[in-house]
């Protein structure tokens, strides 16, 4: 954006909102919104403490195992759906159903099936991420240039060759954007899991701070979470742009 002839850096509007927040916080209109400066002070206070580090570790573990399994399962399933009509017909209704279903309502069922521990949280996380990854991989494969498929066949590619050397790479831009959206959804999944299943990780901090009206603590954790998911999403968007050059040329 350009303002009065000056080019503003990306997201400079955040500064404006930050100042507004600080002013409203200083006016002490509501306990819910402490001044932004207080929140950052609190953030540096609790940032290095063992409970915070532990929460970060627990959340990171559940998040990374959950999203990783969503990718490892989701990408191949999506590719197979895009490639094979029968598999597509069988699975597509379920994928669409779960994509739009209120997954939070399923969490109690997962607790019954998989217990109250880490396993259920990981499955919740994966469940939030996987459907969009499947759908995007499928879409990426479906718009593949048929010549590339014929090319690989004419040079004697096996089914496995075609999958790993052609289909995967041709669909890579869509797969990456699916993974990016999946990651954003997984952040939601891991926190919901940690709030509903067993109060651990960042979920436990939210629970603790909210019930004790420690608003600046609450906001501090939330900002850390925002920042982390923002960084991950931006990193994936960067990867996506790196392969964009061939997305239009398949």
């Amino acid at each position, binding site marked *: 954006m350009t303002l009065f002839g000056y080019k503003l850096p990306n997201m400079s509007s955040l500064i404006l909102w930050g100042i507004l927040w600080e002013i409203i916080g200083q006016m002490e209109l509501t306990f819910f919104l402490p001044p932004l400066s207080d929140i950052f002070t609190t953030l540096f206070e609790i940032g290095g403490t063992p409970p915070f580090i532990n929460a970060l570790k627990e959340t990171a573990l559940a998040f990374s195992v959950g999203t990783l399994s969503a990718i490892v399962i989701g990408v191949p399933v999506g590719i197979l759906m895009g490639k094979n009509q029968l598999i597509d017909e069988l699975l597509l209704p379920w994928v669409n159903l779960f994509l739009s279903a209120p997954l939070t309502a399923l969490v109690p069922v997962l607790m019954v099936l998989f217990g109250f521990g880490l396993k259920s949280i990981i499955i919740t996380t994966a469940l939030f991420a996987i459907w969009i990854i499947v759908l995007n991989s499928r879409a990426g494969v479906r718009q593949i*240039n048929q*010549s*590339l498929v*014929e*090319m*690989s*066949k*004419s*040079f*004697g*590619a096996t089914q496995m*060759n075609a999958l790993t*050397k*052609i289909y995967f*790479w041709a669909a*890579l831009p869509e797969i990456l954007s699916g993974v990016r959206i999946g990651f954003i959804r997984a952040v939601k999944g891991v926190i919901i899991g940690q709030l509903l299943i067993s109060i651990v990780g960042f979920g436990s901090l939210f629970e603790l701070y909210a019930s004790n009206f420690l608003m600046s603590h609450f906001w501090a954790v939330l900002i850390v979470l925002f920042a982390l998911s923002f960084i991950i999403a931006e990193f994936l968007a960067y990867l996506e742009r790196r*392969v964009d*050059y*061939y997305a239009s*040329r*398949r």
Partner: protein
Amino acid sequence: MTKSTDNAVTVRNVYKNYGKTEALRDLSLDFPRGQLTSLLGPSGCGKTTLLKIIAGLLPATSGEILVNGEAVKAPGPDRAFVFQDFALMPWASVMRNVAFGLELRGVVKSERESIAEKYIREVGLTGFENSYPHELSGGMRQRVGLARALSVDAQVLLMDEPFSAVDEQTRRKFQEDLLGLVKNENKTFIFVTHSIEEAVYVSDQIAILLPRPSRVMEIIRPSGFRDKEVDSIRRDPEYLDIVDRIWASLRSYVE
């Protein structure tokens, strides 16, 4: 089954139906070894269908394809395909694209790259080994496609309107280069085109296909100008006569 050693590829009584639509009906055609045969005809005459059946990319409804006297039903190392839209992998360098056929055959990296290197030189792309397809012009991309087909050293090269997506001047250069290839490579070329001039210019044998139902109407073998210089062919009376004759017979089939 006896075979004629003169023909690298023989198409015998091939039928191809898409549901109720007849794409090819009882089509038979011989492709002499070491020569270039064009499949020429109006759109919808099944020339690309026939080429893909020979390639093994499409199954024939009935009939048989003999390559070196043996019936084929699937793609094999004896045939290589050059695609109209190049079919290059945009995520792979020129080197990897050219070596891809060898990569699929399990040739080790150092070996396949030295073979690819040779054909990259042959098609005039030295210095572009590490470029990506989107950095190349249309003509250069088709040179990559050609080098890939040459590097697997198949006896039969199947070319599906290979020059139709490049500009006129590049196309002329390609046609001249193709004549050189046919002369030096000792391979059998099957060349699909819709350009009469192109077919007459490059072919040892021209098969004119007609649509509805598809059949071979005529086989023309230009004889007088094949050994002339590439730049005097277009002024040769025989060249001009054949072009006129083909147009006269195709005219009524063009909507």
